[in-house]
């Protein structure tokens, strides 16, 4: 499977499209194909914990065979990073736990983003013996607008700072992010006009501004056709017509959305059927993972 040959999958999309659910399902699918997989959520409100039904914190946790999860938050990421640079805990305490320094660090551009992204990319590079410790790292990235600025942080720093430790850090991070063999984006969308427009804009922005190509579009909440024109005619006059018509329209919109995405994005489109049962948490992730498996394994 070409998608899982990438080392870092950046999952993003407009808020409310099911980005975290798709990211966790994708990671689950990856783990089940036998790849050691790590999923990182970025400073989020513990979505992964409720999606996997297991506690996920700032320390890497095994949530399934082959699948580790972590919630990357700025405070812990900053401490880990500073410790790597400074080597001694006492120095870290004296400097970084100083009230005024903390205050000050907030305003050095993008320090929080740098250290969070740095942690994710560190795990991409991390080795166990000669082999990568994690073969696939899935990043549940911030939503649309924030994703672009988040992923651009290394480049912005390279433009802002001429030399020094931050520059060196930013450099390897940027290089890893824009390496097409390493990194690819997975965009989550919904079968509606505006979300599709935003996905197209996001794909364009990622490709041109951040230099990350999209390897997969996941069209979540897909409605397959059920009624035809004749059905609607037979429903005419019935109180059920609006329900039938609604379903018909949604199926039509789903198909149109899929066609638009397939035409305009140079990546396969995987559809995930709309879920009606009150499934959330692990059961929902399983369902989405199954749908992804089906779509990815039938892809050319």
């Amino acid at each position, binding site marked *: 499977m070409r998608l899982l040959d990438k080392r870092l999958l950046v999952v993003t999309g407009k808020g409310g499209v099911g980005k975290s659910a798709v990211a966790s399902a994708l990671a689950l699918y990856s783990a089940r194909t036998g790849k050691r997989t790590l999923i990182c959520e970025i400073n989020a409100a513990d979505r992964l914990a409720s999606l996997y039904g297991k506690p996920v914190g700032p320390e890497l946790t095994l949530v399934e065979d082959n699948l580790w999860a972590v919630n990357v938050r700025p405070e812990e990421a900053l401490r880990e990073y500073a410790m790597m640079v400074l080597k001694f805990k006492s120095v870290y305490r004296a400097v970084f736990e100083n009230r005024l320094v903390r205050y*000050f660090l907030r305003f050095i551009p993008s320090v929080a983003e740098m250290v969070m992204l740095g942690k994710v990319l560190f795990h991409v590079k991390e080795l166990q013996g000669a082999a990568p410790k994690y073969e696939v790292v899935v990043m549940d990235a911030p939503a649309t607008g924030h994703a672009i600025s988040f992923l651009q942080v290394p480049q912005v720093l390279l433009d802002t700072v001429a030399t020094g430790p931050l520059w060196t850090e930013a450099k390897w991070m940027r290089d890893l992010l824009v390496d097409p063999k390493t990194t690819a984006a997975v965009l989550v969308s919904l079968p509606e006009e505006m979300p599709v427009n935003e996905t197209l804009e996001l794909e364009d922005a990622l490709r041109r501004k951040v230099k990350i190509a999209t390897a997969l579009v996941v069209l979540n909440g897909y409605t397959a056709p059920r009624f035809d024109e004749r059905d609607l005619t*037979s429903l005419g006059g019935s109180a059920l017509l609006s329900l039938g018509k609604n379903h018909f329209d949604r199926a039509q919109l789903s198909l149109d959305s899929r066609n638009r995405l397939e035409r305009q994005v140079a990546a396969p489109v995987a559809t995930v059927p709309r879920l009606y049962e009150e499934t959330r948490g692990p059961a929902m992730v399983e369902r989405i993972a199954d749908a992804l498996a089906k779509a990815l394994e039938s892809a050319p």
Partner: protein
Amino acid sequence: MTPPGPPAKPPPAPPRPGVGGKIAPSNPSATAKAPPPAAPQNPFCASLKEDRVMVAVGAGGVGKTTVAAALALRAAVDGRSSLVCTIDPAKRLANSLGLKELGNAESLIPEPRFQAAGLTPKAPLRAMMLDMKQTWDELIERLAPPGKREKILQNRFYQSLSSALAGSQEYIAMEKLWQLRTQRDYQLIVLDTPPTAHALDFLDAPNRVLDFMDNEAARWLLTPALAAGKVGLKLFNLGSSYVAKTLTKFTGVETLQGLAEFMSSISGMNQDFRERATEVRDLMADEKTSFVLVTAPGAERLDEVVRFHTLLRQSHMRIAAVVVNRVHLPPTFEAMGSLNRLEPQLRRKMATTVDEVSALAHADAEGIKQIKKECEGTPLIEVPRFDLDVHDLTSLWKVSRFLCGDEAVARA
């Protein structure tokens, strides 16, 4: 309504209160007024008649912009000159209002658009889309001493402050709101805020920006440098050199240099920023300012809306209502009753559809129950999910009918 006078002279800056600090309203007549009698049934009826500012808040993708536009439309139709100020670059709002696009200037919604929707507004409706960067630049141009303007606008730290610093979008939206409120005579301004993942970004924005402007930390780290007018080796000669030096290992010298330069170029403006931030906070806490918390019905949104609600409450902001947008309605009994009259194949397909729609409606109803429980004391208004996207004045009007209680989602 009396048009607002010239910008009120700010009260002497009090010691900087936290987000939770209650500040006396800047409008003295508002304090003198007796509290309104028993709460009216629909919270927006009163707000749309009385409030001068309504701020729509909530996470991204819940329909905040639509709700903001529907409220402004309603106020204009009912006779108050209104402005909806959005940050959503989506063209659709512009289109639905009958404009080719929205810019940083206020545009009047053309008459024919109203006529096409069968509406006769009693007062004008205007709309604008906030350009963050331009508003920041305007602020600097107004506040910075002439000789320093260009230097500030070119500084990389300014670029980061005006675009990347968390909270800066929220801050500048508030700044624009303050300008519009004090310099224009709209009877109602509805502000659609940037989608925030963390409620705190929004409420904390003035503090964060003030912190940035505050020289305490910079003075401590960089004083000798600032005094010398440039940062050089002197950075390491001060009492705090151990800290400064270690920090440099982390950020590089240049970063601290650039920051020191920026701090020194804006040092004359601190007082202005501080006063303005105080005024913005006063405006937020004003009796004629209300917040509209917009959310979607799903249980996955519950935590967000509760967090927002709690924070607004703690900060003494008045919440007009929680709007639960795009609620799925259950199939009618009549619809379910006519299932039996269908031929078997169609009946099977239709029965599945009825089950699906019922499941969605049920899940939404459960979510709403939870929101009601968690946000007790705040009115909750449901707006159904319409079959088609909200994309013209007619549909915006329909949304406003639900917001104002002309129509309501029936709940058993």
